[in-house]
Each structure stands twice: as C-alpha cells, then as structure tokens.
C-alpha cells in the first residue's frame, strides 16, 4: 500500500494515485448520473396513453379531414378518461358572408356580471380560479380613466355614481397578439374571430404581453371541473377543456354563433346591453347601432381596429 503522499493536490503522477483518481472519477460520474435521473424523475409519469399522438399532432390548418376526425375522437376519449364526462368535440368552420361584431351599451349595463358567470359555465373554465373571458369594470361616472376602475366589487348593483364596462377579447382586425405568436398557433378566421389552436400553442405567453386589453388567459395548471358541470357541446377551437400550459381567449362562442345562436354572454344578459350580429348584413341590429348611436372602441389610438364596440343608448 502506497499511502505516503496522496493528497488530492499532489500533481505527482504516481501510478497508484492515477488509478485511484480514475476510480474516484468513475464513482463521481455514476453518482452524478444517478442524481440526474432522480432530479429529472418528476418528468417521467406520462399523463395518458394519447401523449404520443398529441406530441406528433400537426397544426389545425394542416390536418386532413381524416386526421381531424381522429383528433376530435381522441379529445373526446381524453375528456372521458380524465374528467369522467361524455362530450362531443366538433369542428365549426366560419360561415360564408359573415363577419361578427359585438356592441355593448354602457347606458344599459348595470354590472350584474351575469355574462361573466355564463362565460365561465359555457366555456368549461377552471372552477378553482373562477376563470372567465369577461371582466366587468366599475368606474365612477365622469371619467373614462381605467385607473379609477375596479373589477372586484361586492355590493348591490348598480351602485350610485358608477357605471359599468364589460371587457373581453375585442377580436381586433389588426391583432397584435397574432403578429407576435412565433408558431402561428393563433390566427384570425374569415368571420373575424381570433382563435387559438390549444394543441399547437407552446405557452410562451408573448401574446399575453402583446394584447393591450388583457384579453388572454394562460392555463397555469390543468383546469378542474366536476364531470356533471362540464358543458358537453364542445368545439376544437372554442370551449373544449384546454390543456395545461397553453393560452386561451374569448372566441365569440363560435360553437354557438357559427350555428346561428347567440353567444352565451349575450343570452345571459338581463339588461339587453349586448348586441351581437353580422357586420356584413346591412339590416342587422349591430349595423343599425354602429350607424345611429354614439359608438367608441377601446384604445382606438393603437390602431388595433376592434370588432367590439361600446355605445350609449340615451
């Protein structure tokens, strides 16, 4: 045994020292590899058997009819397995000759927030965070300065000296969120609705930074909804349950509106403040409002050209 001068710093290349160093190196490498495996282990349990199909799934716009049918079936199966609910996931395409517009009367809205609740239920939002695509601002009369606005109010409405302003995605004709997306996971459809392919979004949240209206939401965790509360009438680009880690937003309830129905928020509104319709139809109510009322859009100076307008009735 040669143990005379074997301090680690000793640079003398005695053969016994060298082999000991090699052994130590090997032990260190093994230990390192084991530590690596342990550290990365939370990644291991793949959530479901479909994950490989999901991994290789192509962009929505590039799916053939056959592939899309398979994807929709898979999504229904996933919802059944993970949420215990039988749902139908369809694919609603834009209708020819339609461009949707929305107008909200600030004279009529009284801040009851039924729209917020209807959106929450219709669109299968996470129950724990009480998520919704709509937020209603309470503002003091006499100002349009949003600094004075409150979203969380808990008293009888309408409060004296206050007025109310619901904000949701404005479906801009010049949407900054679409421009910034690095993977084209969000785009503007022919009928004006800005949609997200939840299976293509990489979750970088650049769109959230770009949107001037706080219209986008990120799924910070997997949404939780009891099976009996899940709305089973779903669509790929709208209210199907979103995966964890992707961005979502208001889609004008395209699974309803592309079937000729009203959006859930409009149906729920008890004051009649909401007017939804086809901007290309000269006889529509929304066209009447845009032509005859005092109308404005949010942050017009940014040039985003929203399709959601506010107006005064009186």
């Amino acid at each position, binding site marked *: 045994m040669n143990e005379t001068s074997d301090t680690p710093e000793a640079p003398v290349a005695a053969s016994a020292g060298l082999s000991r160093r090699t052994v130590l190196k090997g032990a260190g490498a093994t230990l390192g590899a084991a530590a690596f495996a*342990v550290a990365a282990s*939370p990644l291991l349990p793949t959530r479901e058997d479909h994950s490989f199909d999901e991994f290789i799934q192509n962009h929505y716009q590039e799916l053939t009819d056959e592939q899309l049918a398979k994807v929709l079936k898979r999504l229904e199966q996933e919802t059944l397995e993970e949420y215990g609910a039988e749902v139908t996931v369809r694919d609603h395409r834009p209708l020819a000759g339609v461009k949707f517009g929305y107008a909200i009367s600030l004279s009529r809205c009284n801040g009851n927030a039924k729209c917020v609740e209807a959106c929450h239920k219709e669109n299968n939002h996470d129950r724990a965070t009480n998520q919704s695509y709509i937020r209603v601002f309470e503002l003091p009369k006499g100002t349009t300065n949003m600094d004075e606005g409150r979203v969380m109010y808990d008293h009888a409405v309408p409060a004296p000296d206050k007025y109310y302003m619901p904000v949701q995605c404005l479906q801009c004709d010049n949407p900054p969120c679409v421009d910034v*997306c690095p993977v084209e996971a969000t785009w503007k459809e022919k009928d004006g609705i800005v949609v997200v392919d939840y299976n293509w979004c*990489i979750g970088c949240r*650049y769109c959230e*930074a770009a949107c001037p209206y706080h219209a986008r939401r*990120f799924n910070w965790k997997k949404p939780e909804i009891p099976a009996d509360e899940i709305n089973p009438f779903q669509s790929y680009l709208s209210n199907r349950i979103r995966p*964890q880690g992707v961005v979502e937003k208001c889609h004008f309830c395209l699974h309803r509106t592309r079937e000729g129905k009203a959006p859930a928020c409009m149906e729920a509104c008890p004051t009649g403040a909401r007017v939804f319709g086809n901007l290309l139809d000269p006889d529509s109510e929304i066209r009447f409002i845009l032509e005859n009322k005092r109308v404005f859009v949010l942050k017009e100076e940014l040039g985003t050209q929203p399709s959601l307008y506010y107006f005064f009735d009186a």
Partner: protein
Amino acid sequence: MTKATSTLEASKAMSESHRIGYPKFLFRSLSEATDGSFSFYAWMTALTAVALVGLNAWAHQVADGMILTHMTDHVSWGLYIANFTFGVGLAAGGVMMVIPAYLYRHKGMHDVVIVGELLAIAAIIMCLLFVVADLGRPDRFWHLIPVIGRFHFPISMLTWDVLVLNGYLLLNLHICGYLLYQRFLGREPNRRWYVPFVLLSVVWAISIHTVTAFLYSGLGGRPFWNSGLLAPRFLASAFVSGPAFIIVTLLILRRITGSRVGEGAVSLLVKIVRVTVLVNLLMFVSELFTEFYTGGAHAASAEYLFFGLHGKTGLVPWTWTSVALNLISAAVFLCPRIDRRTRLLAFGCACAFVGIWIEKGMGLIIPGFIPSTLHQIVEYSPSLLEWKVTAGIWAFALLVYTVALKIAARVLSGEMTIGGTQARA
C-alpha cells in the same frame, strides 16, 4: 495531371488525419474537462449540484404546471425572461473584445479574445435554457423549428430572436472550435476559415441585443417598453456588463495561472467601460426625464418602479439598489489607474454586473406589466421554485464556461496538442 493527383492525395491524407485528429481532440478535451485540482473538483461538484436542484424544480414545473411560479395573467413574464434578457446582453458584450482584437489588431486583446467568444457561447446556452424554462409546453418545442414546425417569420420578432441567438451560438462555436482545433494540431489557422466569421460575429452580436429589445419595444400596448431608446440602451448596458464579467474572468485566470495573462486586455476593457458606463447612465437619465416630466398614464410604470404606485412598492428596493450599484461602478471605473488596483476593479465590476442584472432584468420586465394594460396593479415576486430553476441555469452556464476556458487555456498554452498532453509545469 500529376499535380492534380498529388493535391487529391494530400487532401485525402488531410481528411484521413482529421478522422483521427478530431476524435482525439474531443477525447482530450473531455479528459481535460474532468480532470483538475481539488478546488476544480469542488467548484464543478458545487455547480453540478445547483444545476441538478434547478433541473428538479423545472421537472416539477413541467409536471404540475406553471402555477408553481408566481407569475399571473397580469404579470405573465417574470424572473426567467428577466434573466434571459440580461443574458443576451452578456453574450453581446463579448464583442467588445472582438472589435479591438480583429478590427484594430490590438495585440494584448488578440491573445485573450477567446475568453469573450467562449463567454458568448455560455451566455447564449443560458439564454436558450431560460426560454425553455419559460415555456408552458416545452414538449412542443419542435413547433418552433423552421420547416418541420410553423415558423412565423418574419412577422413575429420572437422568430427573429430564435434565428439570431442560434446563429450567434453557431458562429462562436465555429470560431472557437476551429482555432482551438488548429492549435491542437499544431497548425497555423487559415484566415479564410475564421476571419470572415469573426467579422460577421461583430455585426451579429449587435443584432442579438437589438432584436431582443425589439421583442419588447414593438408592443404598442406596453408604454414602458414602447420606446425607440430601448435597443440602444440594451447595447450600452451590455457593453458594461459583458466587459465587467470578462475583466473578472481575466483577473481570476491571472490568479490561477500565476501569470500576467490579459494585462493589456484588462486595461483596454477598462477604457471601454469608462465610456459605456457613462453612455448607459446618460440614456437612463434621458428616459427618466421624458417619463417624469411628461407624467400621466405613460409614466405609471416608471412611477411604480421608482416610488411605488397606490401603495404597492414591490420593485422599489430592487430599483434603488440597481441605481446605487450603477453609480458606484461608474465612480470606480473613473478612478485613475483603476486597472492596476485589482481589488477595487473587481468590486467595481461586481457592482456593474449586479446593477445591470437588476436594471435589464426585473427592472425592465416587471414594470412592463405593472400597471397592467387595463390599469390594474398586481405585483410579482418570484417563487422559490423560480429561484431554484434560475440558479440551476446559471450554474450550468458557469459549468460550460469553466470547462471551455480550461480546455482553451491548455490548448493555447501549447500544453494540449495532438502529440500528447504535457504535465503541468
């Protein structure tokens, strides 16, 4: 005819020799990377441990969702993107060695220019890891790869950033790899194979930080970022933090090797920082004046940053720390003969580094989101998990930098050649 055959044979022999020589180069590099003194092992083990803690935290984040961070829909970018932004500046800062070395043929700088180029490599790797850490769906990373994914080029500035960052990484890998390999073979590097790339890398270095600034300055809905001065400010601060880091590296190398390596380079870098640190402060003051003299909604973010808004003061301590550190570093760099007073110089560099880390990190990203676009104030401070991931990525980048420097030092000193690795003197 005979001449043609002989050239062919020569090139054949050459490629034959590369087939043996290059694996040898890689193998020697690997053994160099895993061999050293006790303090080297201790340093590497510590970095590995921190990196693994970060990996573990990130694995939890991927499995359970980014709810484990403290980011929200209001402040949707946080510590990761803050560090990413700072890291791009660090990578670009290395160019302040390349320009004197290659464009002005400064001898002292030319000998150690690889220290800056290797820093660029390590910093870019760090940036790419921070971007991956920030993704909600890292498993879908391939969607970002041109051709097989859907690359939204040239409209999305993020695709530009993907191109310039990866391009800068490849450029520097080529330059460093080629020069070191030639020295390893004992050959004179062929200028044709690296000088054009070096010149390209100078322009490219400017582009990476400019494009990164454009990510933010192009957003009309975020008045705090929506300023034409943002890209120039990014560059000015990068040319402080980058050289500051390199100066410290050179001082440490001097200590480890016990030689006077990089002495000329340090005094030139000090001269450069003396200018850039003042340019950076000038732009900072100019932007502050515009914000506060005008006032109104446009200044709300700056008000939050410096004084707090409606009683919310989360960033105020960070901001004033940064301002103080930047002022101290400016004062230190302006001291006469500072390049000889190494302790004070190292202190000044550390102040500059941390000051800009705050300014171009948390101090830039967070106020962009506060107040939010509809004027709400939701504050943000990173969660423990975010700090772990961040520390892990920094540790990994330092690990890469250490190994790269160690190999480069051995090759450039002629101790590691194809003929064999000489024992340390």
